[in-house]
């Protein structure tokens, strides 16, 4: 298996002393994880995983349930600390031990479990933790609402949301997801992590989101798309990483592989 994987990457860049499964970064990646492990007691949620996000690319992170995809995403967004391994932001060693640090690295995440507060309005959810406030900490409700209207109309055309003061608890699952996406898109800078963002979206909303991810790439923002839908992944991703039981089992650029091959690796491993 590892031999086959090595062939798929551009082997000429592999350093002799450090075997890397899969593709080798071209130039300095925006974010690189080297040999990261995450253990919960004796259980290894991530075992020696190398992962990077280059400039202006969309990476598809694939794998069955429990493969460690969400753990990896949570690590990159500063919620889970790695047990061991190195993290490099723009080629410089860094830590992502808190949301503040990942925000500083320009990383924004759309979480699988959405991360919205049901009892708060859409506007308050969008600006949660990043309220527009004066220097005494008092919020500028008017400006936040105006921005929220812009955001809601912009990133994802969200079906049926016409009042930014509405409580999130009264939105449908898809609308909630759309709000979470709109929020992340608004605050993103370098990297957007999307953890199963389309699970509750309608077909139209999904198309819109995938189109948006492509637009972001043109503007220079990279994305990581975690999904079970290989068709979606093939529509937008430049590179695929397949994980299984906490390790990376396959990695290839889009032009070097086929949907059948990727599917095969997802279901077989």
């Amino acid at each position, binding site marked *: 298996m590892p031999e086959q994987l090595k062939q798929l990457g551009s082997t000429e860049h592999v350093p002799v002393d450090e075997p890397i499964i899969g593709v080798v970064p071209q130039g300095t990646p925006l974010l690189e994880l080297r040999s990261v492990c995450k253990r919960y007691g004796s259980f290894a949620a991530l075992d020696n995983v190398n992962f990077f996000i280059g400039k202006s690319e969309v990476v598809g992170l694939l794998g069955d349930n429990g493969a460690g995809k969400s753990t990896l995403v949570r690590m990159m967004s500063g919620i889970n600390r790695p047990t061991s391994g190195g993290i490099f932001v723009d080629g410089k060693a860094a830590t992502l031990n808190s949301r503040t640090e990942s925000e500083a690295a320009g990383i924004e995440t759309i979480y699988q479990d959405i991360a919205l507060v049901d009892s708060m309005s859409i506007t308050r959810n969008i600006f949660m*933790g990043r309220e527009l406030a004066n220097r005494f900490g008092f919020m500028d409700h008017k400006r936040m*609402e105006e921005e929220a209207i812009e955001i809601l109309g912009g990133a994802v055309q969200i079906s049926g949301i016409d009042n930014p003061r509405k409580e999130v608890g009264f939105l449908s699952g898809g609308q909630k997801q759309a709000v979470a996406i709109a929020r992340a898109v608004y605050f993103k800078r370098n990297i957007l992590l999307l953890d199963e963002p389309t699970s509750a979206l309608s077909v139209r909303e999904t198309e819109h989101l995938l189109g948006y991810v492509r637009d972001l790439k043109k503007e220079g923002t990279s994305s990581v798309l975690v999904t079970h839908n290989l068709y979606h992944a093939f529509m937008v991703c430049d590179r695929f990483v397949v994980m299984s039981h906490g390790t990376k089992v396959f990695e290839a650029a889009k032009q070097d592989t086929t949907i059948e091959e990727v599917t095969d690796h997802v279901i077989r491993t």
Partner: protein
Amino acid sequence: MSLSQSDHIRKAVAVYEARPFATKIADWIRDRPEGGIAVMFVFVQLACIIAGLLFPESFRYLLQANITVTLKSIAPLGLMALGVGVLMIAGEYDLSVGAQYSFLSIVAASICNSLGGDIQADHPSALAPFIGLFAALGIGALIGCMNAAITLKFNIPSFITTLGAMLLWKGATLLYHGTTSQRFKPSEPFATIFGGELSVIHASIIWFAIFAVLFYFLLQHHRLGNHFYAVGGNRSAAIAIGINPNRTKTIAFALAGFMAAFSGVVAATRVGSIQPGGGLGMELQAIAACVIGGVALTGGRGSILGIVLGTALVFTIQDVLLLLRAPGFYFDMFVGVLIVIAVIMNTAVRRTKS
């Protein structure tokens, strides 16, 4: 992001803003957690006023003396409920506020008296009562921080931490002071600032109003208030978005302790003496006032107006029962029923909306 994409939302917001006044009121009642209780409050007040006009002899609701007494008695519970309510919005409880109320008012009184702040001392110190008050407020906030530290450090329910704290401070009060009552007749200007009267308006109700407004601005207009709602409403979402839940909750605990201390000192100033067991059961009354006012037990939902109305409604019921010369236990029974009705109403409103 082009402007045209957001135009339909802007239009909808404009339409929403231009609703007729009656619709706005109806929507407010349906949408806000305190909407139901506001209706009930207005209804009860109207009923009482009409009854007071119809039977001025037997039901003396509109008598100045009655209004004065009711307004006087609201503040201590209301001040405590503000702190408790904010803590509940942040998703935690404090059952020890009643014990803190007694303990800290006795601490304030004994500091004041030992520094010669008693009004009947030879040369009463004007500063002493203030020193006592600030000491009590500081210790109150500190006790709150302690509750927070234990709850958050060991990740146990605050219900348990503060149940323990309640017993601890109840015992500490008796250890520190004994079972006798503590005299508290502070010197001027303290006595006027916290216990003066302007016709029917007692100083304590003014303090309640001031703190209600302060807490309103904190909750609705300060980013910290937003964090209280976020942490109480969905802790993991708050963490995911970069809010430090422990810091936020610690501040809420400290506020609850601070308000318990303030409420204790204000009540003591009015009464002139402190019973060591005086605050017992107040923590539950404060929680009851908050719940009646639409504060969710699960956190993340509630408002200052609701807490104020909840407190006022509790005292209106008490007042009506007193005027009808009903025995004291009726009060508990009525409040008990009211709590259940209020929660049913809030839940029902929420269910029909979604």
